[in-house]
Structure formats: C-alpha cells, structure tokens
C-alpha cells in the first residue's frame, strides 16, 4: 500500500509540475506560436499523468469498482488524441489569418 501511495504521489507531482511549467511558459514565451509549444505539450502529459495517478489510486483503494479506472484510461486516450489535434487547429487558424511568427532578437509581444 505504501508503494502505491509513493507511485501515485510521484505521478501526481510530475503531472502538476508539467502543468505548472506549461503555465509559466504561457507567461514567459514571446509570441503566440511559442506559447502554444508550452501549453500543447505540457497539458497533454501533465493531464495524462494526473489522471493516471488517480486511476492507479482508485484501482488499489476501491478494487470493487473496476469501471472507474477503465473510464479514466479512456480519458487519457482521448486527451492524447484531442490535445495535439486542437493545438494544430489553433496553430493553423493563426497561420492562415497571418499572425507573424516571432524571430530571435525581436520585441516580445
């Protein structure tokens, strides 16, 4: 049981760390496209790790309801498909409407 708690804590901690990094990147990076790099990647893995931690915790704490971890696993699957697709869609919309990419040495926007 202690081992499960350690694993779950590590997963949740790593997930929260990556979501935090994504948020910091959203604030620090200079323009639209580079900000999407931070949010698009970190939210995918961060959210996935948090949900994985919750699923493992539930699996060992309440083994009589196996459907909940199964549903959480589906959530991870859909996040990993939907998140890059959404990031790509936002990127494409910005590119087609003519948002200029930031180059090295310019002012941050």
């Amino acid at each position, binding site marked *: 049981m202690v081992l499960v708690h350690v694993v779950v804590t590590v997963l949740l901690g790593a997930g929260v760390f990556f979501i935090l990094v994504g948020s910091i990147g959203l604030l620090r990076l*200079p323009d639209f496209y580079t900000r999407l*790099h931070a949010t698009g990647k970190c939210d995918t893995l961060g959210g996935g790790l948090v949900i994985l931690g919750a699923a493992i915790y539930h699996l060992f704490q309440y083994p009589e309801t196996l459907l909940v971890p199964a549903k959480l696993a589906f959530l991870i699957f859909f996040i*990993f498909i939907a998140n890059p697709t959404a990031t790509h869609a936002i990127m494409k919309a910005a590119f087609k409407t003519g948002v200029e990419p930031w*180059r090295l040495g310019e002012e941050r926007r």
Partner: protein
Amino acid sequence: MRLGERAFGILLTFGIMGVFWILLSGIFDTFHLISGLVCCAIVSIISHDLLVKGKSEKKLQKSLRLLIYIPWELWQIVLANIDVAYRVLHPKMPIDPLIIEFETTLRGDFSLATLANSITLTPGTITILVEPERGKFWVHAIAKEPAEALLADQTMQKKVAHVFMET
C-alpha cells in the same frame, strides 16, 4: 469480396461500440444490454464506413505495428516535455523559432493525421499545415536543433511510413 469487406467493417464497428457501451454504462441488466446492442447495430450499419475505411488487407499487421509505435511515441512525449521545461525555466530562454517545410511519401488520411499529431507531441515542433495531395508539411520549430532533427534523419517519417506500409 466487396460484401465481405462491408461485413468486416460493420462487425468491427459493432464490436468496438459494444465494448464501449458496456464499459461506459456499467449497468449489466437485460434491458440496458439489449438496448445498447440494438443502438450499436443501427449505428454500425449506417455509419461503419466512417471508422473502417478502404481495404481490409493487412489491417491486423498495421494495428500490431501501431501498437509497437505507441510506446516509442509516449517516450518522445516525455522527452518533449522535459525539453519544453528546460527552455521555459532556463533564465535566458534558449529559443530561436523558425518555420520549415518538407514533403513526405505519405498519402493516407490516417497516416497523415498520425504523423501530424506525432510531430506536435515530439520535442520542439508543432504542425501548422498539411497538404494531403503532396504529403507536404509546414512545421513550426522552437529552435534550430529540433528542426534539423526532423529534416535530417527523418526518423519519425520513416517510422510512420513503416507502420502504415506507405514507403
């Protein structure tokens, strides 16, 4: 042969949707099971071609190759996140964004979507535009090294082409 493919598509769609229904409902009495299976049957007869499209040959082999590809892709996602964390938390922010273009040999909808999503999730690159007719990709890279990694050795393009057998 045409009929066999159709039946295969309907059966596969029905199977996937049935499993999904049972998992999500979580109620195992007769009424819920039968109503679920009837709904699955209707939907899979009407719209099975949305999920299972084209030739059914080598589908099993492609699925197996996709299963081998996914763990590698997950590892790449972890590397991508560490890369973003390094660039964001570094005091000087080592970024030098640029947009690159390249063409691939891929033409299928599913393989192009897989490659586009894989590029978005791997270190330092996001797909901007895909042109299916020529298999052309526009990619935004956050620095020079990830762009060169994508252009020079083309590991990812080769892996996706290998999975979907479109060399």
